[in-house]
């Protein structure tokens, strides 16, 4: 019962906050600012309590496809709140908070009314490290993607010499490029670490496991190559701005395909359940 209330209340607060960010982006007013920021803080606090309740009920942090989207959403909000507080800019929220809403709804549809919290059945430090690193990597990639999309929106206005809606609302190209740049680099580091951890764990624990038959392997590999290329191109090839933004968006689309979609659609270790 308490779980259902927390799931719905958290979702409601995130939706209210997303609405606040959208309205504030459209028309900057003090009341929309209050709605968006108070909404995100309130939702995050309830979300923290929700994850604590889930963990206590399950007896461990349930790293299953049932709860993982919500865990990722929680991490995205932590990073977003840090960005908002440090830059005093709310424009990123207009794209980031809806991602959070979608991730939370994924968990909500699986948990609401069931009360049945699944655990993975997998254990071991390498497994937990893999999941944590991937969670952080997805968070960073989502933020990098949002930075990239906003960069392209602002760039299109500046290049078209028609300074309008986005010009007056988004932070500078430099700030968006830095967000994209740093998030992609952090994400790449965590993706690499997570992949190494998962490989070590799989070879230790799954005797019949063949990495080549794993459905998420190919998209992860392609995403890794794209982000590796992205990072190298940024730091060594001068791929700043537009090209880097495109790479981040492509990488995130592949990451979405790799886990949340492939993992859910196909059977295998990534359909994490008991």
């Amino acid at each position, binding site marked *: 019962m308490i779980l259902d209330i927390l799931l719905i209340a958290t979702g409601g607060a995130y939706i209210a906050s997303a609405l606040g960010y959208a309205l504030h982006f459209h028309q*900057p*007013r*003090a009341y929309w600012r209050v709605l968006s920021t108070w909404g995100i803080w309130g939702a995050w606090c309830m979300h923290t309590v929700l994850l604590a309740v889930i963990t206590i009920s399950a007896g461990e942090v349930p790293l299953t496809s049932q709860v993982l989207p919500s865990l990722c959403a929680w991490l995205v909000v932590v990073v977003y709140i840090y960005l908002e507080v440090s830059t005093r800019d709310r424009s990123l929220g207009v794209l980031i908070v809806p991602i959070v809403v979608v991730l939370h709804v994924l968990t909500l549809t699986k948990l609401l009314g069931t009360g049945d919290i699944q655990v993975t059945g997998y254990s071991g430090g390498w497994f937990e490290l893999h999941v944590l690193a991937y969670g952080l990597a997805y968070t960073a990639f989502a933020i990098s993607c949002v930075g990239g999309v906003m960069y392209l929106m*602002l760039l299109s206005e*500046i*290049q078209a*010499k*028609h*300074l*309008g809606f986005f*010009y*007056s609302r988004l*932070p*500078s*190209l*430099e*700030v968006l490029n830095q967000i994209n740049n740093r998030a992609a680099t952090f994400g790449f580091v965590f993706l690499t670490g997570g992949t190494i951890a998962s490989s070590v764990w799989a070879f230790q624990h799954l005797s019949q496991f063949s990495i080549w038959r794993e459905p998420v392997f190919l998209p992860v590999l392609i995403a890794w190559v794209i982000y590796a290329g992205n990072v190298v191109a940024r730091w060594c090839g*001068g*791929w*700043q*701005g*537009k*090209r880097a933004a495109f790479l981040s968006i492509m990488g995130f689309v592949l990451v979405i395909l790799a886990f949340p979609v492939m993992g859910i659609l196909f059977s295998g270790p990534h359909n994490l359940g008991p």
Partner: protein
Amino acid sequence: MSLVVIGLSYRTAPVEIRDGVAVLPQALDAVLQYFSSVPEIVECAVLSTCNRSEVYCITADIHAALAAVIAGWSEQSGLDADALGQHLFVYRDTEAARHLFGVACGLDSMVMGEPQIAGQVKDAGAAALSMGTSKTVLNRLFRAATEVSKRARTETEIATGAVSVSFAAVELAKKIFGNLEGHTALVLGAGEMSELTARHLADNGVKSLQVTSRTFARAQDLAGRVGGRAISWDDGIGNLHNADVVISSTSAETYVLERPHVAAAMQKRNNRSMFLIDIAMPRDIDPAVGELYNVFLYDLDDLESVVGANLEKRKIEADKVSTIIEEEVENFSAWINSLAVVPAIVALRGHFQSFMDSELAQAKLSEFSEDQRAQVTNLMRRFMNKVLHKPVTRLREAGEEEDGGTYVAALSYLFDLVVEEYHEKEIKEVRGS
């Protein structure tokens, strides 16, 4: 009593007249004292900028106040009083409040929505307050004007977007690079427009400002004025890759920067963004340069169209600002109207107080102890307050809705009250009660 503004602005008077009556900051106190010494003027404040001079006053005799202002300005400027009078505007009561709110929001400025005027209105109110020439009404009026201008700037886009070419260029540079501190700018040519832009860039903290011209002496001259460093033409062109922002305004008849040159510079700077501002006529920079990766090229036409679009946008926003002004004028009017009932409230309280005092005097309280007498007096006072509470509240509300006069007349008739015009002491008394 009426609120009146007597003034002239760039809309009504040429610059010679405006210069004549303009009040320098160091002379403001004396001018305020002069106007406040006029017997008919109860409160006054002076707003003086390069585009307007206005005297706000509370007076019972508008003609006397107008005559005093004309005489004062005539004496100050040496201009003929009749000639001066032709350039004046006079607004009273709600029109005066509407005018000040519009001025504070920049609706009446030469460049619509310009932000400096809000600070100047605030300073005018503060100066009158510190000199003691403004009291309840004008203090409230100027506070409200400051609030209205804040609302206009936060709730509308009246003050957004650059409205000069040089500001538009600097705003764009900030939108590309974020903070300009730590960035390098190169000025090619020493024209007036490049000087303005360079000055704005320097004000925004560019790390290094280099100036070059084919005539080195001109470069030195401009560099000295804008706090930059003069370099030779060849050094400037040769070190193009070090510049994040390039402002070009030479009088050359052919392109000074062509695509291969800028492409080579971009390669050297690892494709980091470069913003080129071509404000020369004919143009200095080959338009094909703008096609290069991470190069942003804006010429004079582009910047002028940005400015034009911003001005258009401000005109559209002016309607939203007018709505805010109307709301605040209504609030201010309600407050002013409520002042009209203050004397009636004071008279009513005085009437009941004297009634209570006379009854207490007639009562034989001498047999009571001091404590008992105090208790009886307090009882009577509490009774009087309770009886008067509702009528006074209703009277205040009626005052805000502009039909206070009817109730004041009825009260005067029913209780035989003598109601005079309000003054400062009464307002404080009523507030205190």
